[in-house]
């Protein structure tokens, strides 16, 4: 069921017999080393095309036809190329590109690995396979997965989801069992009165009325019991479902805090928040309304059917006649309703989005004088919502009445047949039985029409539960089992042949070697997209390297306790994230126990103390939408104060000064100067002039270190750095001239 199979097995699937025969007759026949099936043929049609790597070369086989075969001796390179909607692996043979496989996006990582395998084989290197790879198709039923490595929506057993949901109730076992008993009791209190009706009728018509007051008292007692039981049941249900959902939310939140950053990289924040809130809310609604509905009605349905059959099997058969009509009608109606509900959802979403854009983008709308167009757009979305609302109501209207008509027919049938038989006399079936029958029949029919609706509700709730459980099942960040517990970190950092890709097949770092001594100030320079930010992300262990090693104080960072590692690293980002809290609390974020005096000292060192006191509420100023607005430079310096108080051994400055004006930059530079002293510092800087004080500058290009040295040495060398610097100075000059 899981789609994560050992990678070696993915690349060692047996070839179909006729393809294997064709390969044996080809120019590259030999012992098979790797195989991989594509989902597209070379002509882009869907179908399998096998790539086989033998000890002698590479062949592509479609059915029993060898389309391409190249010996390793002729191959100079193998590369995977991205196409629109998939990719292609091409070999370089005698200077020309020879495509050997086309594939959709489902197989991009697999073929990226295959290209490297072929490249390694062609150059006589032993190919290295990564340890794990999440496939895009279910390993069992081959259905496409909701996302790479997820559980298959078709194979995942529904029973298991239910068991997990029930398992969540374990801490509240007593209440859950009480609820189940009360539910059964509620059903019983509903079922007794019609039978009492029969007894009352029989007693009255046979003249023996002594029991009647007691029977009537019994009816009232049932009603009272029903009321009490329902009150208790409602309280219990509300408590249990509320508790369950609160537990789920806090567990989701806690799990997410510990998930690997790569999980967040694939999703937008809105989607994650929606998952936490909406899926749990959907589950709660189902647990409060849907599940009791199913339990109560399911139970009474079975009980009533049994009672009806016990009273009179023939008449019971008559009652069952309209059942398919009711269930079928409900299903038909529901099928019409669902698309309308979806349409309402998406169209009211469109109205919301338009409104939201109009409000948030009011400046842009006014500046471009587009008010009438916005108004038209809103009216259009609004009218579309009205239209679908209307058709929903029209579909609804008449349904209940139609169903009532069908039920009335069933009831009339029962009256007719029942009264004829009761009047004829002689049989055991009396008028009292008929009365009981009619009492039960309405109870029996009522819930049937919603059978399909509740069933689809159940499916949706399971989908929500499954999405929630999928998060729980994600791998979380964990310490190495044999973590090296250093007392403190000095701050030596070394990268050795580090390779990394966010997405398999697109290598971002292609073998980075850098070593930084404790206390050294190193500047990282390079074009955007060259891999600088990735390097510092890897140092914080936000992601794991593909190959190579990063070490701190000579210990591989995977072996360091995460807590120690991240406590020792401080980061000041280009656009620092500040929490919706006071200035003082934000500065304290990394060290909640710091005294106010320490906060002030940090703020002073960050050259932001005066600016904070200038605010009406000083250190109590709340940062955020509702609070006072801070300038970019102030936010930046508050982030620096936060890093100063955090007092890390290793400091990372990620474009910390690029978003501010020259004046503010000077203040920030001074703040950074205070911060850098005595720490290992890695600074990514866009403005190269800010790195003049760096002990060393490392130039990154296309995922590799291309130059290294002091500012002066690199200028003297007249290489990458010198040309970057020239370009920037030129820009500044034209800028100054324009000004």
């Amino acid at each position, binding site marked *: 069921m899981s789609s994560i199979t050992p990678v070696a097995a993915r690349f060692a699937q047996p070839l179909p017999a006729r393809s294997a025969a064709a390969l044996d007759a080809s120019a590259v026949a030999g012992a098979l080393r790797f195989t991989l099936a594509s989902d597209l043929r070379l002509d882009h049609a869907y179908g399998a095309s096998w790539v086989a790597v033998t000890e002698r070369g590479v062949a592509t086989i479609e059915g029993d036809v060898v389309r391409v075969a190249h010996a390793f001796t002729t191959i100079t390179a193998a590369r995977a190329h991205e196409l629109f909607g998939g990719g292609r692996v091409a070999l370089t043979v005698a200077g020309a590109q020879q495509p050997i496989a086309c594939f959709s*996006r489902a197989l991009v990582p697999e073929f990226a690995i295959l290209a490297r395998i072929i490249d390694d084989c062609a150059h006589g290197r032993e190919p290295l396979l990564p340890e794990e790879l999440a496939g895009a198709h279910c390993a069992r039923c081959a259905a496409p997965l909701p996302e790479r490595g997820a559980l298959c929506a078709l194979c995942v057993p529904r029973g298991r989801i239910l068991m997990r949901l029930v398992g969540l109730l374990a801490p509240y076992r007593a209440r859950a069992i009480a609820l189940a008993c009360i539910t059964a009791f509620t059903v019983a209190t509903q079922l007794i009165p019609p039978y009492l009706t029969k007894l009352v009728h029989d007693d009255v018509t046979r003249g023996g009325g002594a029991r009647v007051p007691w029977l009537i008292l019994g009816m009232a007692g049932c009603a009272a019991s029903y009321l009490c039981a329902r009150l208790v049941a409602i309280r219990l249900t509300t408590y249990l479902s509320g508790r369950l959902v609160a537990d789920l939310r806090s567990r989701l939140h806690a799990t997410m805090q510990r998930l690997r950053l790569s999980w967040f990289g694939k999703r937008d924040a809105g989607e994650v928040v929606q998952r936490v809130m909406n899926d749990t809310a959907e589950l709660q609604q189902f647990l409060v309304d849907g599940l009791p509905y199913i339990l109560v009605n399911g139970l009474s349905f079975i009980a009533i059917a049994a009672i009806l059959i016990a009273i009179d099997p023939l008449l019971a058969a008559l009652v069952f006649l309209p059942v398919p009509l009711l269930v079928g009608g409900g299903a038909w109606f529901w099928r019409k309703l669902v698309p309308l509900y979806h349409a309402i959802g998406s169209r009211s979403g469109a109205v919301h989005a338009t409104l939201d854009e109009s409000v948030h983008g009011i400046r842009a709308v006014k500046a471009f004088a587009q008010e009438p167009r916005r108004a038209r757009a809103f009216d259009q979305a609004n009218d579309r919502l009205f239209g679908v609302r209307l058709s929903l109501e029209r579909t609804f209207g008449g349904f209940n009445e139609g169903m009532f008509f069908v039920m009335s027919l069933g009831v009339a049938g029962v009256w007719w047949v029942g009264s004829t038989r009761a009047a004829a006399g002689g049989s055991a079936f009396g008028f009292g039985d008929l009365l009981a029958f009619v009492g039960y029949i309405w109870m029996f029919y009522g819930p049937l029409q919603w059978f399909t609706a509740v069933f689809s509700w159940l499916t949706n709730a399971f989908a929500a539960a499954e*999405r929630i459980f999928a998060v729980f099942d994600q791998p979380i960040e964990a310490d190495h089992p044999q973590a090296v517990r250093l007392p403190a970190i000095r701050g030596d950092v070394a990268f050795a042949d580090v390779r990394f890709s966010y997405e398999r097949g697109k290598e971002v770092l292609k073998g980075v070697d850098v070593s930084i001594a404790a206390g050294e100030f190193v500047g990282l320079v390079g074009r955007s997209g060259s891999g600088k930010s990735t390097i510092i992300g890897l140092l914080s262990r936000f992601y794991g390297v593909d190959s190579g090693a990063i070490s701190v104080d000579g210990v591989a960072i995977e072996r360091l306790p995460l807590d120690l590692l991240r406590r020792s690293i401080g980061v000041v980002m280009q656009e620092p994230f500040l929490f919706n809290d006071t200035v003082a609390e934000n500065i304290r974020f990394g060290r909640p126990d710091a005294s106010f005096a320490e906060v002030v000292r940090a703020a002073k060192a960050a050259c932001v103390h005066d600016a904070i006191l200038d605010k009406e509420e000083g250190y109590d100023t709340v940062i955020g939408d509702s609070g006072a607005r801070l300038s970019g430079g102030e936010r930046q310096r508050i982030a620096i104060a936060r890093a100063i108080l955090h007092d890390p051994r290793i400091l990372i400055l990620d474009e910390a000064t690029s978003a501010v004006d020259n004046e503010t930059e000077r203040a920030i530079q001074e703040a950074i100067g205070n911060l850098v002293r005595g720490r290992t510092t890695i600074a990514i800087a866009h403005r190269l002039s800010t790195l003049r004080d760096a002990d060393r500058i490392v130039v990154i290009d296309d995922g590799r270190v291309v130059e290294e040295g002091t500012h002066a040495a690199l200028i003297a060398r007249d290489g990458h750095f010198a040309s970057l610097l020239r370009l920037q100075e030129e820009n500044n000059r034209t800028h100054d001239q324009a000004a």
Partner: protein
Amino acid sequence: MDQLFTTESFLRLETGADGLRVVFARDDGEDGEHAVAVRPVWARPISGEGREVSLIDERRRDVLLIDDVDALDRPSRAALEDALAARYLVPTVRRILATQAHLGVRFWTVETDRGVHRFAMREPTRNVTWLDERRAVLRDVLGNRYRIADFAALDEASRAAAAKVL
């Protein structure tokens, strides 16, 4: 539309060992020509496929924007169309055989110009884009795209299957 296509030094397109090449006349006054290896991309791959083609060089710069493929000479056009066909893997849906939802995932089985294919989609409201009344683009969970060239021209069963979602 303004003419984006600049013809001054452009000579032709051809297929070389490394793929598509655009050949220009030398602009330094000398006689002769020089070729640049390029890859063709649709400027508007979703809304305007078949319209403007940009030719991108190895440094990812646009060296030539062609806004009318028909204006090219026949061999150039053939070379361009081959290169485009090799780059764009977007099938056109001819029939929708089935759509089913399981646990919030919508499974589509479609017959395309490239054969029958099954794919999974989440949140149809976000992954079905209507370009106009008739044309739509479907996007599966992996980001593969599928084109519907004319919804009205699909058969009854296809439209009924799609009506559950669209």
